[in-house]
């Protein structure tokens, strides 16, 4: 029943185009743990099983009820009375024969009592609809074990996610609108030589109209610099004059009418971005200055070794700049001119990557590790993405919940805006408090809705008091949260199911950037917010 390599290529084609074969490999080597196979839990897992994670294990001590089956696609009427982990595993496993499904008929608290290291084996643990005490306990265990923890909850029309990971490095962040790395402000030697090989004035018309705009800008920039004391165009007025200078370079016909030279129009259009000074992004500078970069040890993850190597490069061969990325955008040009120009960038990128490699080697040597521990292709990928490196560090749950380290500023400043989703975070905390006190959630049964309002309000007040939060929560929200009665409507579970699964994939694959660290979804208004707590 297991798929062949070819059938997997076909099946996963649409997602391979997003994260590549190497991304897919990380998924197939991952073992995901889901705690609680509620609707939210199974929806999250469905979106991980379909793309082909290696294995999953559901941990759930609950027995399936009629209510569970009503909102959960992966439970059937026959499952009523059975253990929920087992019942859900069957129907989830059925989605994808490449995935290996397991279950444990025990809750996480009991599991931890018997085997404190049970959760260490997982690539990521996803905890759904967890009571506060269990959540905090798991949070502490997983933090010490450096296992990423994703907490999810659907409560009425509110969805909540909290990512808990100490340090998550991302090489391939795939930014949506990346600036090109053209080096027009500081052309390296080979680029300069290439520019010199062009004589725009003496070119045939056909060549002139098919010269890449990068060359055109470079040529006219040389002219400008020589006429302006080596100073590039800086303000709007100067850039306009520079554009005009290029425009005057357009060939004219016998009647003095400018010809149609699209490549020159491209040059003019791109002047603004082309003149951007080559700069190391501040996010990357911050990484250079971090402890992990400064102190490379035998335990340092590859990311930091490579980053340090790039830093060394910047201070030596790079002359203050990152390794050249090596790509150029498409532009109007004949094939040969374009390919030749592209090769100038590609070769420089290779050269720079080789220099970084040497630094990697000596760093590894200095901590007694073999040079092969970081493959060449990883270094190349790292260099290509040098401008886009990201590191996500989430605060622990302990920090979030402790009175000493609670992020009061974030909470109070958000609560200043009437429409902020922060109020839902506070309500979820209050509801957790209610559960702790009453061993149930508010308003589950119709007769409880009214009487629980004052009890929930008391929880809200004690919460605000404990954390010295000088904010006001309207009674409407307290009423609404009693009304919810801890319902887990399927569509809200499904929204979280998609959101959480993709964040888990980001953690597993180290591609794309995860959120940091709390996400709230409001299905009433179809709005959301990311909060840092």
């Amino acid at each position, binding site marked *: 029943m297991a798929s062949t390599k070819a059938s997997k290529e076909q099946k996963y084609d649409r997602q391979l185009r997003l994260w590549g074969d190497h991304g897919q490999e990380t998924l197939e080597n991952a073992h995901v743990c889901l705690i609680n196979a509620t609707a939210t839990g199974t929806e999250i897992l469905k979106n991980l099983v379909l793309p082909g994670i290696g294995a999953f294990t559901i941990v759930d001590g609950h027995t399936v009820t009629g209510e569970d089956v009503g909102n959960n*696609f992966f439970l059937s009427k026959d499952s009523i009375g059975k253990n929920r982990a087992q019942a859900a595993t069957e129907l989830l496993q059925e989605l994808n024969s490449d995935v290996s499904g397991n279950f444990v008929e025990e809750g996480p608290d009991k599991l931890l009592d018997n085997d404190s290291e049970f959760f260490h084996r997982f690539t990521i643990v996803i905890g759904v609809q967890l009571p506060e005490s269990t959540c905090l306990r798991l949070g502490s265990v997983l933090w010490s074990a450096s296992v990423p923890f994703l907490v999810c909850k659907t409560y009425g029309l509110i969805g909540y996610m909290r990512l808990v990971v100490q340090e998550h490095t991302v090489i391939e962040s795939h*930014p949506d609108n990346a600036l090109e790395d053209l080096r027009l402000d500081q052309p390296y030697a080979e680029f300069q030589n290439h520019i010199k090989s062009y004589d725009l004035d003496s070119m045939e018309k056909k060549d002139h109209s098919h010269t890449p705009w990068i060359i055109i800008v470079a040529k006219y920039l040389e002219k400008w610099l020589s006429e302006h004391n080596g100073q590039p165009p800086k303000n709007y007025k100067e850039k306009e004059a520079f554009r005009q200078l290029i425009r005057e370079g357009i060939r004219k016909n016998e009647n003095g009418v400018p010809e149609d030279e699209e490549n020159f129009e491209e040059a003019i259009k791109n002047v603004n971005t082309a003149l951007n000074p080559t700069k190391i992004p501040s996010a990357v500078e911050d990484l250079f200055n971090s402890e992990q970069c400064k102190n490379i040890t035998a335990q340092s993850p590859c990311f930091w070794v490579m980053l340090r190597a790039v830093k060394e490069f910047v201070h030596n061969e790079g002359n203050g700049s990152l390794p050249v990325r090596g790509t150029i955008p498409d532009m109007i040009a004949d094939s040969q001119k374009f390919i030749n120009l592209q090769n100038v960038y590609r070769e420089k990128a290779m050269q720079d990557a080789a220099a970084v490699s040497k630094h990697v080697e000596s760093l590894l040597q200095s901590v007694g590790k073999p040079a092969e521990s970081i493959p060449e292709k990883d270094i190349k990928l790292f260099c290509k993405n040098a401008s886009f490196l990201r590191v996500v560090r989430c605060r622990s749950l302990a920090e979030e919940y402790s009175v000493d380290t609670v992020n009061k500023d974030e909470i109070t400043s958000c609560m200043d805006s009437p429409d902020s989703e922060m109020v839902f975070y506070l309500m979820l905390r209050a509801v957790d408090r209610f559960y702790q006190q009453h061993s149930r959630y508010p308003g589950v049964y*119709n007769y409880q809705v009214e009487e629980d309002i004052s009890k929930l309000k008391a929880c809200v007040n004690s919460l605000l008091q404990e954390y010295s939060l000088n904010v006001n929560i309207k009674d409407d929200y307290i009423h609404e949260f009693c009304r919810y009665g801890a319902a887990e409507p399927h569509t809200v579970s499904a929204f979280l199911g998609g959101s959480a699964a993709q964040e888990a994939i980001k953690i597993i694959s180290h591609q794309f950037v995860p959120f940091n660290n709390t996400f709230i979804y409001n299905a009433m208004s179809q709005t959301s917010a990311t909060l840092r707590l």
Partner: protein
Amino acid sequence: MADAEEPEKKRRRIEDLTEKMAVDSGHRDGGCDWDGRWNHVKKFLERPGPFTHPDFEPSTESLQFLLETCKILVIGAGGLGCELLKNLALSGFRLIHVVDMDTIDPSNLNRQFLFRPNDVGRPKADVAADFINSRVPGCKVVPHFKKIQDCDESFYRQFHIIVCGLDSIIARRWMNGMLISLLSYEDGVLDPSSIIPLIDGGTEGFKGNARVILPGMTACIDCTLELYPPQINFPMCTIASMPRLPEHCIEYVRILQWPKEKPFGETSLDGDNPEHIQWVFERSKERAAEFNITGVTYRLTQGVVKRIIPAVASTNAVIAAACATEVFKIATSAYIPLNNYMVFNDVDGLYTYTFEAERKENCSACSQVPQDLQFPPSAKLQEVLEYLTENASLQMKSPAITTTLEGKNKTLYLQSVKSIEERTRPNLCKTLKELGLSDGQELAVADITTPQTVLFKLNFTA
């Protein structure tokens, strides 16, 4: 200005009608429900709350309306469609129809979770309906293995709400046009009971959007056509004589080399045929080698030929969930619906943005304002054709232009029927004056982007 009031009135009207009919409906709960089945849903239907729609009245009958009366149409049984069917079924909807003209392909299996490897080749609508009906007892999904254009007005009229999970802008516009054509106006005033709400979802990679359209009242698909800029194809001269990217090489083989060499006889290039793709791949590599271009792979070849859009389960799950939530809100008046457009992107963290898309005063689909065509009498018909296809607010695909001359219907130009195209092609080079058209002349334009012809008024400029 989204107003769910009218659908609520419509719902009540239908409830009244149902009660008046002497029908034995048997057990109210269909006999297949179990204890607690709808607990999660009931809390939103039977309890009052501070944020509900002003029209909302808690009642045990709302659930019955969902289970027994409310009819929903799902357009598409693919990435969004499968999710929508599941979401609706688990929210209490039972009378669901689904339309999809496609059959199942292996590349669907990474996200279209109602399908299995054994189902490859079978109609999506059929398999999806079977799966839902068997997994969710009591749910009666009715499949339609056909194009949306093959269903008529009377088909669409039966539904309370229509939700789309399409992968084509043309199809969306057609659906949009169909619902607009169902609107009835009395003395220029829109009859609210003729409005069928349209919930539309779309996804691409890690991006998606969900919107609520009340035809005739809120922004329609065509009102915001500029949000979908036309797909840009590579210029022919680049493809033909100066390729720079591997994509250019592949397009060369697809557009120029295949028709010339006819490697599989008269068969046209089929992106789903691996042998065809292999041929294109090899020729593309050869062309790339000629120009020292690297990067032609099988995957890239297939992507370019089929115009593949990457897709994952997660984005479809999110957007379909948002859409289904809106269907629920509108069907039950539980909350005020989305007003009216949400975008989602989870490339970097998770980002949503919700705004009210505005109606276009002179929208060619929903404004009822006759469309203006401004041309000098010396303009050629070709120019009018180009305007219809290139204008960002019209973006027609292959418009057929007819008019009335001397009391008779005359086709000025029509592309989709070969014989008529040949006969009318000379008209393209004639001026509007030569064609006998006068100032103020009405032109009727038909196109696949709309089920109704669009009327244009010719306005001669100097």
